[in-house]
C-alpha cells in the first residue's frame, strides 16, 4: 500500500511539549494549542482523503482498534471504522446493547476484557456521563471518547471546528449560535468549550427547559429566544431533539418546537447572509431544521461535517498511538 506523505507536524508543536495526553476524553482537558494542533493534523487527512482515490496509509498497520459502542450509533461508528481502516489498523466493532450492559461491574469487566485482548486503541461510546473515563482508568492503551451521556463528544467538536475553520478561515470574533437541546447534549458541551477556547463568541440558544444552569461558565451566552440568538450569527449549529423529549416532558410538541426553535429559511435570514448551517446528525427534518435549509448547498455544511469527521478521527487515532508506535520524537 502506498504511504501518503503527510507533513509531519503542525506549527503548534514548535517549541512546545508534544501533545501530552494518553486519551481523548474531554475537550476540557485540552489547551487551545492542543485543539489547534489536532485540527492541523486533521487538515492534512482531509486533503489526503479528497485527493487520493486510494486512501490507505498504513501507519497503524498491525495495531488493533476496538470500537466499543454501548449505545447505538451509525455515523460515528462508521466514521471511526473508516478512519481506523484508512490508517491500516485492524478494526473490530463491539456492539453492546444498553440492556445487556447495565450493571457497572460488567462495564469494568468489559474494560478488563478489552484490555486483555491487547487493543492498541479503544473507541468508546456509552450512555452514561463519565463512563468512558471510568474505562480509560482501567486499560493500558489509548481511549477515545466517542460520546458519554450528556458529558462530552470531543471528536464531534473537533470536526465541527475543522469545518468552521475551513469555511470561515478562523474563529476570532466569529459568532456561533448552538441551538436546541443544550441540556441533554454532549455535542453542545464539547462545542461550547472548544469554540470558546478557539476565540469564537458562543451563544447557547435553547428553550428554558432545555438550558442547563450556569452555561455561562462553559463560555457561552444563553439565549432563550431563537431570533435573538441568531441575530448576526456567522455559524448556526443545530442540535438533534430526541423524540422522547418532545411530547410534553420538556417541550409541548414537535410542531410547537418547530414554530419557536426550528431553523427555517425565514429564521436563518436573521443570521449573517453567509451564515453556515451545521447539524451533528441525525436530523429530525421539520422539527429542529427545515429540509430546504438542511439541503441548501450554499449554506449547509452538514455533509462536510461528516467528511471532516473521518479526517479528525484519523488525526486522533494517529496522534494518540504515536508513543506506542515509537514515532521519532514521541517515545
Amino acid at each position, binding site marked *: 500500500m502506498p504511504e501518503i506523505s503527510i507533513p509531519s507536524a503542525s506549527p503548534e508543536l514548535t517549541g512546545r511539549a508534544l501533545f501530552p495526553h494518553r486519551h481523548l476524553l474531554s475537550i476540557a482537558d485540552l489547551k487551545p494549542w492542543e485543539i489547534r494542533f489536532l485540527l492541523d493534523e486533521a487538515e492534512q487527512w482531509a486533503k489526503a482523503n479528497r485527493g487520493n482515490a486510494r486512501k490507505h496509509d498504513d501507519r497503524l498497520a498491525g495495531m488493533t482498534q476496538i470500537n466499543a459502542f454501548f449505545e447505538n450509533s451509525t455515523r460515528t461508528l462508521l466514521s471511526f471504522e473508516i478512519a481506523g481502516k484508512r490508517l491500516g489498523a485492524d478494526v473490530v466493532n463491539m456492539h453492546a446493547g444498553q440492556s445487556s450492559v447495565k450493571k*457497572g*461491574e460488567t462495564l*469494568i469487566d468489559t474494560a478488563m476484557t478489552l484490555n486483555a485482548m491487547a487493543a492498541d486503541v479503544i473507541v468508546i461510546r456509552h450512555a452514561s456521563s463519565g463512563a468512558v473515563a471510568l474505562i480509560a482508568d482501567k486499560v493500558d492503551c489509548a481511549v477515545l471518547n466517542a460520546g458519554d*451521556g450528556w*458529558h462530552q463528544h470531543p471528536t464531534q467538536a473537533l470536526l465541527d471546528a475543522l469545518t468552521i475553520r475551513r469555511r470561515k478561515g478562523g474563529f476570532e470574533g466569529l459568532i456561533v449560535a448552538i441551538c436546541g437541546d443544550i441540556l441533554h447534549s454532549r455535542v453542545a*458541551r464539547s462545542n461550547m468549550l472548544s469554540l470558546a477556547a478557539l476565540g469564537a463568541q458562543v451563544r447557547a440558544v435553547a428553550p428554558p427547559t432545555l438550558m*442547563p444552569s*450556569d452555561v455561562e461558565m*462553559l463560555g457561552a451566552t444563553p439565549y432563550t429566544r431563537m431570533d435573538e440568538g441568531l441575530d448576526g450569527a456567522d455559524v448556526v449549529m443545530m442540535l438533534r431533539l430526541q423524540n422522547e423529549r418532545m411530547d410534553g416532558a420538556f417541550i409541548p410538541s414537535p410542531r410547537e418546537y418547530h414554530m419557536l426553535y426550528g431553523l427555517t429559511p425565514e429564521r436563518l435570514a436573521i443570521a449573517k447572509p453567509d451564515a453556515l448551517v451545521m447539524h451533528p446528525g441525525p436530523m429530525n427534518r421539520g422539527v429542529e431544521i427545515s429540509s430546504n435549509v438542511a439541503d441548501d448547498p450554499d449554506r449547509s455544511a452538514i455533509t462536510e461535517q461528516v467528511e471532516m469527521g473521518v479526517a479528525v478521527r484519523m488525526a486522533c487515532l494517529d496522534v494518540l498511538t504515536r508513543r506506542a508506535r515509537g514515532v521519532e520524537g514521541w517515545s
Partner: protein
Amino acid sequence: MNIPANNRDSMGVSTLAIVNGMLADPAGAALTAGTILIEGDRIVAAGDVAVPQGAETVDAGGQVVAPGLVDLGVFATDKPAFHFGGITRAALMPDQSSPLDDVGLIRQAARAGKPDFWVHPIAAATRGLKGAELAEIGMMQAAGAKAVGTGRQWIADSGVMLRVLSYASGLGLTVITHAEDSGLAGKAVATSGETATRLGLSHAPACAEALAIARDIMLARETGAAMHFRLVTTGTGFDLIRAAKAEGLKITCGISPAYLFLNDQAVTDFRTFARLSPPLRSEEDRKAALEAVRDGTVDVITSSHDPRGPEDKRLPFADAAPGMAGAETLLALSLNLVRDGLVSINRLMTLLSANPARILDVNAGSFGAGSAADLIFVDPDAPWIVDSEKMAAQAGNTPFDRVPVQGRVRRIMKGGVFF
C-alpha cells in the same frame, strides 16, 4: 481493659470512678477537669465529685471524656467502624434489604449490636417504604423502634404524610424525614450548577429541599407532631427550620460533615464517593450550613454511615449508589468545628450525643444521673490521615480520602463496660 459487670454486681452495687478526665459535658460550657461515677450501666454523678471509698478507679490520664456518640440515621450496622468512631448507639434507617416495616425485623435489628453496641431501629413510616399505607408503627415501637422514618425518600403524597405525622405523634414518636421534593429531584444525581452542567449530570435545583421542608413544616404545624429533618443542606432550608423553631414547632434538623466541608465541586471527575443523597451543594449553601451549626439551628450531626463496595461505587456516576462511609470520620471532622471556633466542644457533644438521644427518647448521650454509662476517651488533637484503603468500615467509600484530620477515640465504654 475489661471490667466485667458481674464482678461489681457480686459485691452489691459497686462504684466505678473515672478520674483525671477532662469532661466534655454536653450540659456544660467548657472542658472541666472532673470525675465520673458509674454504678452498673448508669452514670450516677459527674463533675467535681469525690471518689467514694472502695470504688474502683480508672485514670483517664487527662484525656477528654465525652458521652459515646449517638448517630442519628445510619444505613448499616457496621460495628468496627462505629467503634473506631466512638459511636456507641446508632439509629438504623429503615432502608434495609427488607425495609424495617415489620415487628420481627425491628426486633432483629435492635438485637444486632448488643452488648457492645446498641442499635435503635427507625420504623418505616409506610409499608415497604412505598409512601402509601401506614406501617404497624405502634407494634414496631413496642418491639424497640425509637422513631419513625420515611427513609431515603420523601413521602410525596401530602395526605399520607399528614396521617404519618398525626399517627406517630399519638405514639410520642418523632418522624424522621428526607427533605427533597421528589417531583423536582426526580432522577437527579447532582445539584444544579456549574459542576453538574460541565459533567453532563442530571441535576435538580437546590430548592427541592426547601420545597419539601416547607410542606412538612406546615403538616407538622397542623398535627403538632415532632419532626426531624435528617439532613438539611441548603441556606433556604435552614431559614425555614429557623423560623419553625422560633414559632415553637417541634422541629429539629441534622447534617453530616460532608455538607459542612465539601461542596458540589467534590464530584468533579465523576467521583462516585462524593455522590450523596441529598447531593452536595454549592459553596454558598455550605457556608450557610456552617452558620446554621454556629447559630444553633442544627441540632444533630450524623455520619449518615452507608458503606458501599465497588459493586455499588465503581460505576458511571449516575448509576452509582449514593452514600458515604462516615462513621470513622464523624468525630474527627466535626472537631474541625471546634477548632474553627464555631462551637465549643460541649456544644459539639450536644450535637453528636445529647440531642440525638433526646430525639430518640433514650436515656443516653449525657453525664446526667441515670444516663447510660456510654463514654469515650478522646485525644482531640491526635493527627491521622483518612485512608479509604484502610478503613474499619465494611467499605472505604469516603469522599475525604487522604484528608488529614485530628481527633482519635482511645477507649470506649458501653453500658459501664470498656470494650
